[in-house]
C-alpha cells in the first residue's frame, strides 16, 4: 500500500499536483526540488532509499572536507612536518586548509549572526547556527568557483526551518499517537517485552483493559497520554504519512527515515544544493547563477545572469504596465538595484517568514525544467531571457513583477530614484499574499510566452552597448515583427520601425489625453520608444493607416524630394514638413551617443512630432505632450552640440527640402536658410529649451536666448528679402509664425523661471 493510494482515496487527486504530504512542507519541497522522486506512485521505500543516499553523500562530504588538523591524514602515519606544520605556506597542508576554512567560517559567521533576528529563538540557537555554518561551509568548499556570497545563508535558513517544522510535527504526532510508533505486542513495548521475558504483570494487563473501557466511554477525543491504539487505517492521512515516514525499518535503517531530526543537516544540504543548482537544464532557475559575476559563455546577451534576469523583469513589466515601467526607467531605477536582492534570496528579505514559506511553496511547485527550445533561431533574433524559459523561472519573474505592481501607486508618486528604491526595497509587511501570488501566476503564463513567441522578444544586437542599462538597449532596439521583415539592423529598418512606433505613440497620446491621465510623468525619449515598442502589438491596427505617408516620406527623404513636395499645399506644409523631417532625421533607434549626428537626428525625429501635435490638437495636448515628450538631457546636449558644431545648414537643408523652391538661398552658413524651416527649428528649440529647463536653468536660458536671437534673425532675413508690401504669402506666414514662436518662447521662459 503506497502512500499515494491512501491519499488518493481520501482526497480527489488533482491532475496537476501531488497532494501528498500536504502538511509536511519539508518533504514536499524535497520532492519539488528533485531530491526525492516526484512521481506520485513512488513508494515509501523508494523515498527512503533516495533519502538515505543523499544523506550518505553529505556525510562523506563532511568527513572529507571538515578538517581537524590534529587528526593525522589518512594513510600517513608520520605526516611530513615540513608540510603539515601550522605555519606552513604549502597550500595542500591540512593546516593551510584549516586556516582557509577558518577564514570562510569567519565570513559566514558575520552573516549568520545577523540571520533572522526576529526569529532568533530558533535561528540564533547554537545548534542551528552550527548546522547552518557547516552546511554553507561544505557547500562553498564543494563549489569553489562561486564560494560564499552574502545571501546564501538566507536561502538556506528557511529550508532548514521547514525541516525542523516537519520534525516538530512528527514529535507532536508521536506524542498523540504514541502507539503507532512503537511496536506493541501484548500491550507492552517491544523492548520491555524482551527484557521482561514473558514475566509480565497480570495486574497491569487488567488495569490497561479497564482503562480502555473508560476511554471508550469518554469519547474519542480523550487527551490521555495512553490512548487506545487505533488501527492504522483509522488515522487521518496526514498522520499516516507521518508515521510511515518515520518508520525506522527498512533497508536503510535509521538513515532512511524521511523525517528525522538527526539528519536535518544532511537534508538541508541536499535541498540547498538542489536549489542552487536546480536541474541540469540551462533554462531552469539555478540560484547559484545569480551569484555569478560574469556572464556564462553561452549566454546570448553576454551579461551576468542576474542582470539578464533583472532586465527580464523589466521587460515583463513593460509588457504589462508600460507607464510604470517607463516611469521607473526615467527615474533611473535600474532593475538590478532591487531585483538583485529579490532574485538572489528568492524574496527572502521581502516577506516575513510565514509568507515566505507560502511564496516558496508556489515557486517550488512550479516545474523547473526548461520549456522552450533554445535553438539557433533564438540566438539570431535577439535576446532571450534565460530565466523565463522554465515555469519556475517565469513564476519568479511574475512574482517580482506582481510585487512591483502591488506598489504601483506609491511608485508612480515618487520623484526620484532613491525614494522609489526605498519603496521597492521595503516591501510592506501586511500584504495580501494570495492576490500577489494570483497575479504572479497570471504573469507567469505571459512570461513563458515571451520566450516562446519570437515576436514578443526584444530584438537587438547580441552584445548590448556599453554604458546603458540592458532594458533600455534591448527594448529600444526591439520591435515587433515589422513588415519590412526581420532584416539585420539597418538604417532603413531602424528608421521605419521608429517611425511606426512614433505613429503609435501619437495615437496613444491622443487616447491618453482623452482619458485624462493624472500623472504627467516626464519621460525621456528612450522611454517613449520603449513604450511604443511595448505597445506595438496592441497598436497594430493604428499602424496600417499611417503606412503610406510614412513610406512616402521615407522615399522623399532619400531622394531629396523636391518634386514631390512641390505639390503639397501650404496648409499641409507643416504636417508634411514634420513627416519629412522626421524621416530626414536618421533615428538610430538606440539611445547611444553615437556621435553628434545621431544625437542630432534623434532630436529631429522627436521634436517635430510633438510640434505637429501642438498645431493640430491644441494647448491641452501641448501641455501634456510637452510634459511627456521631453527629451532627456543627453540627447539634448548632443543635438545642440551637433547643431552648433556642424552648422545648421545640414539640418536645415534636410528639413527644408519640401520648401526649397520658395526660399531664396541666403548665405547658408550659420543662418537658418529656409523660412519654413524656421517654425520647426524654433519649435525644436522650444522643445529643447523646455527640456533644458528641466535640466538646468543656465542651459535653458542660453538656449532660449539663442533661439530668440535666431527668430529675430529670421524675421530680419525675411524682411530683407522682400519688403513688407510685396511679401509673398508664405513669407508672411513665416514671419507670423516666427513672431508667434517668439512670443511663446517668452511666455514659456517666464512661466518656467
Amino acid at each position, binding site marked *: 500500500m503506497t502512500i499515494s493510494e491512501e491519499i488518493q482515496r481520501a482526497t480527489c487527486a488533482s491532475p496537476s499536483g501531488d497532494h501528498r504530504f500536504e502538511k509536511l512542507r519539508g518533504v514536499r519541497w524535497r520532492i519539488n526540488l528533485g531530491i526525492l522522486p516526484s512521481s506520485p506512485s513512488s513508494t515509501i521505500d523508494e523515498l527512503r532509499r533516495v533519502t538515505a543516499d543523499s544523506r550518505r553523500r553529505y556525510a562523506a562530504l563532511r568527513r572529507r572536507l571538515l578538517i581537524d588538523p590534529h587528526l593525522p591524514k589518512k594513510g600517513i602515519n608520520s605526516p611530513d612536518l*615540513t608540510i603539515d606544520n601550522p605555519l606552513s605556506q604549502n597550500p595542500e597542508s591540512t593546516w593551510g586548509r584549516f586556516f582557509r576554512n577558518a577564514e570562510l567560517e569567519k565570513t559566514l559567521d558575520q552573516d549568520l549572526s545577523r540571520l533572522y533576528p526576529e526569529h532568533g529563538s530558533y535561528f540564533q540557537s547554537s545548534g542551528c547556527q552550527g548546522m547552518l555554518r557547516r552546511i554553507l561551509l561544505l557547500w562553498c568548499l564543494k563549489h569553489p568557483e562561486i564560494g560564499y556570497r552574502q545571501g546564501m545563508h538566507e536561502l538556506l535558513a528557511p529550508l532548514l526551518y521547514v525541516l525542523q517544522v516537519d520534525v516538530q510535527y512528527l514529535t507532536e504526532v508521536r506524542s498523540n499517537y504514541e502507539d503507532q510508533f512503537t511496536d506493541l505486542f501484548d500491550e507492552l513495548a517491544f523492548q520491555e517485552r524482551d527484557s521482561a521475558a514473558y514475566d509480565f504483570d497480570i495486574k497491569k494487563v487488567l488495569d490497561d483493559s479497564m482503562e480502555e473501557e473508560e476511554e471508550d466511554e469518554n469519547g474519542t477525543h480523550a487527551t490521555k497520554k495512553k490512548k487506545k491504539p487505533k488501527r492504522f487505517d483509522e488515522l487521518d492521512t496526514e498522520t499516516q504519512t507521518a508515521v510511515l515516514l518515520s518508520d525506522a525499518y527498512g533497508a536503510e535503517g535509521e538513515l532512511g527515515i524521511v523525517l528525522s531530526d538527526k539528519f536535518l543537516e544532511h537534508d538541508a544540504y541536499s535541498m540547498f544544493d538542489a536549489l542552487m543548482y536546480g536541474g541540469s537544464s540551462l533554462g531552469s532557475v539555478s540560484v547559484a547563477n545569480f551569484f555569478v559575476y560574469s556572464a556564462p559563455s553561452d549566454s546570448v546577451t553576454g551579461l551576468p545572469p542576474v542582470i539578464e534576469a533583472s532586465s527580464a523583469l523589466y521587460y515583463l513589466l513593460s509588457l504589462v504596465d508600460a507607464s510604470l515601467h517607463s516611469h521607473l526607467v526615467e527615474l533611473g531605477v535600474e532593475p538590478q538595484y532591487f531585483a538583485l536582492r529579490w532574485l538572489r534570496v528568492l524574496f527572502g528579505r521581502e516577506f516575513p517568514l510565514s509568507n515566505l514559506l507560502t511564496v516558496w511553496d508556489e515557486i517550488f511547485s512550479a516545474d523547473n525544467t526548461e520549456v522552450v527550445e533554445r535553438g539557433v533561431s533564438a540566438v539570431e533574433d535577439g535576446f532571450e531571457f534565460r530565466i523565463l524559459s522554465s515555469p519556475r523561472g517565469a513564476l519568479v519573474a511574475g512574482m517580482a513583477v506582481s510585487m512591483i505592481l502591488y506598489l504601483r501607486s506609491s511608485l508612480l508618486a515618487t520623484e526620484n530614484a532613491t525614494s522609489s528604491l526605498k519603496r521597492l526595497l521595503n516591501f510592506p509587511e501586511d500584504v495580501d499574499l494570495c492576490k500577489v501570488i494570483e497575479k504572479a501566476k497570471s504573469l507567469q503564463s505571459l512570461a513563458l510566452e515571451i520566450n516562446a513567441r519570437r515576436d514578443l522578444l526584444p530584438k537587438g544586437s547580441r552584445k548590448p552597448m556599453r554604458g546603458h542599462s540592458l532594458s533600455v538597449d534591448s527594448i529600444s532596439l526591439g520591435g515587433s515583427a515589422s513588415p519590412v521583415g526581420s532584416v539585420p539592423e539597418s538604417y532603413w529598418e531602424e528608421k521605419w520601425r521608429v517611425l511606426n512606433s512614433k505613429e503609435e505613440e501619437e495615437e496613444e497620446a491622443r487616447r491618453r489625453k482623452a482619458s485624462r491621465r493624472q500623472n504627467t510623468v516626464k519621460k525621456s525619449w528612450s522611454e517613449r520608444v520603449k513604450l511604443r515598442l511595448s505597445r506595438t502589438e496592441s497598436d497594430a491596427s493604428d499602424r496600417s493607416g499611417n503606412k503610406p505617408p510614412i513610406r512616402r516620406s521615407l522615399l522623399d527623404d532619400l531622394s531629396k524630394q523636391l518634386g514631390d513636395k512641390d505639390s503639397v499645399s501650404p496648409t499641409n506644409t507643416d504636417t508634411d514638413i514634420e513627416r519629412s523631417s522626421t524621416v530626414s532625421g536618421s533615428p538610430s533607434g538606440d539611445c547611444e551617443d553615437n556621435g553628434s549626428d545621431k544625437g542630432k537626428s534623434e532630436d529631429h525625429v522627436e521634436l517635430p512630432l510633438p510640434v505637429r501635435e501642438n498645431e493640430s490638437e491644441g494647448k491641452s495636448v501641448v501641455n501634456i505632450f510637452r510634459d511627456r515628450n521631453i527629451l532627456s538631457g543627453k540627447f539634448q546636449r548632443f543635438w545642440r552640440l551637433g547643431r552648433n558644431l556642424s552648422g545648421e545648414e545640414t539640418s536645415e537643408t534636410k528639413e527644408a527640402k519640401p520648401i526649397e523652391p520658395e526660399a531664396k538661398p541666403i548665405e547658408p552658413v550659420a543662418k537658418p536658410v529656409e523660412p519654413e524651416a524656421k517654425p520647426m527649428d524654433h519649435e525644436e528649440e522650444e522643445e529643447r529649451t523646455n527640456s533644458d529647463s528641466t535640466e538646468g536653468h543656465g542651459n535653458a536660458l542660453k538656449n532660449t536666448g539663442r533661439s530668440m536671437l535666431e527668430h529675430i534673425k529670421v524675421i530680419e532675413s525675411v524682411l530683407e528679402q522682400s519688403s513688407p508690401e510685396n511679401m509673398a504669402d508664405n513669407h508672411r506666414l513665416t514671419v507670423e509664425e516666427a513672431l508667434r514662436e517668439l512670443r511663446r518662447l517668452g511666455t514659456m521662459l517666464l512661466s518656467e523661471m
Partner: protein
Amino acid sequence: MVLVLALGDLHVPHRAADLPPKFKSMLVPGKIQHIICTGNLCIKEIHDYLKTICPDLHIVRGEFDEDARYPDTKTLSIGQFKLGLCHGHQVIPWGDLDSLAMLQRQLDVDILVTGHTHHFTAYKHEGGVVINPGSATGAYSSINQYVNPSFVLMDIDGLRVVVYVYELIDGEVKVDKIDFKKASTSSSAP
C-alpha cells in the same frame, strides 16, 4: 586551537641584522593568537614587528634589551595551561634543568619558556614542560658562536599541547613536533 609563538634572543641590530627570510615568510599575521618572547630583542623596531604578527605580545627583559620597562618574569594562562616566561640569564647555571625546574615551581606554571642559551631544548619534567626556543636570528651567544636560528610554535588545544620546533639548518627549515598532555587539573597526584 590556540597558536602561541615562542621566540627570543634576536639581538637585533647588535649581533644580527634581522630574522631569516624563510622565517619571516612563515610568520604571517592572522594565524597566531599569542606571542611570548624571552627577551633580548633588543630594539623597539623588533617589538613593533612582532606586534604586527600578533597584537598579543608578552615579553620579559633580557640583559641587552633597550627598553627597561619589561618585567623580569611573567606568567599567563592560555586555555588550560599556565605559562611562565623568563629570560634565563638570572637562572644559574644557564640552561640547567634543575635550576629551571626550581623557577618553574616558583612560578607555579605548567610550561616554562626561557632563553639566553641560544640553543633549543625542550624537556618534559615533573608534569611540566621546559622549553627554550633558541635564537630566532641565529645570533651568537657567549657560549656558542655558531647558532642555528630556531623558534617554537605551541598549539594549545584543551589539555593537550603540541610543540612545533622550527629550525633553520643549512638553509632549510626543519620542523619537529612534541606532544604533551597535561594531567587534568582535578586529579590528585598519585
